């Protein structure tokens, strides 16, 4: 099946699965390692994917949280995420989807550093404007996180947040549901009454 649905499988006992979707494989791997280093009462499973749809021949557990990783330096990552979003069922967006933006910290570094050209696909300036991703998150009514995934400390912090979110989305925290969390995560910048 080409569309991911949130509740079509039985949940694994004491298991929470997160799916990270993004084009930057190294960053995703590092983030996955940081998340697994967090100590958490439930068992964590991290799936990494470049894009959706996922191949249907693999037997995978129920996915509790999807995080789309966008790098502000590459338009390809944004386009990839936008295309992958079509393969996600709408019921997923009731709190089980999040957007993670990276690369915002490098905005002011000039294009030619002392090391010459940076790695392929990454320019020094942000090719995606911050407002684009903010609008994307607002359209899909999903929480938006900013993090510089290259720095160890920030990565650990966002890993901690994602682990907590994952626990809530998997139903491991009594009294808080994913939808509840979604409402609580709305900051005063994007109130829920907007775009009625």
């Amino acid at each position: 099946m080409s569309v991911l649905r949130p509740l079509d499988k039985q949940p694994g006992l004491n298991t929470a699965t997160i799916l990270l979707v993004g084009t930057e494989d190294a960053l995703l791997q590092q983030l996955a390692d940081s998340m697994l280093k967090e100590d958490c009462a439930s068992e964590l499973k991290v799936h990494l994917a470049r894009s959706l749809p996922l191949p249907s021949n693999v037997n995978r557990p129920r996915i509790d949280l999807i995080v789309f990783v966008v790098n502000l330096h590459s338009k390809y990552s944004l386009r990839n995420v936008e295309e992958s979003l079509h393969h996600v069922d709408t019921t997923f967006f009731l709190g089980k989807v999040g957007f993670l933006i990276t690369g915002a910290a490098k905005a002011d570094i000039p294009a030619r550093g002392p090391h010459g050209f940076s790695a392929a696909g990454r320019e020094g300036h942000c090719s995606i404007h911050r407002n684009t991703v903010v609008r994307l998150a607002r359209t899909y009514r999903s929480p938006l996180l900013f993090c510089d995934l290259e720095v160890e400390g920030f990565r650990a912090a966002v890993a901690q947040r994602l682990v907590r979110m994952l626990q809530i989305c998997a139903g491991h925290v009594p009294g808080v549901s994913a939808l509840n969390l979604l409402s609580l995560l709305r900051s005063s910048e994007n109130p829920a009454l907007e775009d009625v």
Partner: protein
Amino acid sequence: MEKQPGEQAAAEPADSGAGGGEGGSPQVAGAQTARPEDRLTLLLRLRAQTKQQLLEYKSVVDANEEKTPEQIMQDKQIEAKIEDLENEIEDVKIAFEIKKLALDRMQLSAALKKNLEKINPKTSVLMDNMKHVLKLNKLIMKSHQESWDLEEKLLDVRKKRLQLKQASESKLLEIQTEKNKQKNDLANMENSDKIKTIQQNLQMEIQITTVIQHVFQNLILGSKANWAEDSAFKETVLQLEKNLTMI
């Protein structure tokens, strides 16, 4: 493309995939501890988890039970229904926002209370901030009051102006009607037949008198009498000169 997942178990990696669906908690508890307290903790935690997950599934089932009406309704009814539903959504959203605000306020005040209990209240920056906030609030209230008073005054002035305008409007209307009446009366008067006959008579009389005047003038001139000598005579002659059409 999917990479293999990285797994980590809080307990020893038991086959959670195989155990899924069973109430097989002894398997998940694994071989790490044989202590019954840990197992009990795990059991309780699993119970809470399962409860929460059951709640989520139940709510999804309940949400899916609401069916859209199958019968064909008229457009207006559908629109009315849509509006009702949208209003409901609005109300729920607003109520939720209010509750969230109240909750935030409660949390904030609770945290503040705890903080105040810890810190010596007289010397902290927090108290200064709060005092400043109070001062500003008072100022705000005062300026609100002032602006409200000014607005009231403005409103009164505007009302008076409106009243004056209306009075002047009515007066001008009266004047206009009076003028029109006068004009109409005048026109009526000028067009009435009585006046025409009177005017004709007048003209006739004037002509007759003019003829009589000329006759007398010619009589006097023909008699070759010296009319300039006698003042009474002179007056009579001069009176005959009067052009009656000019009167």
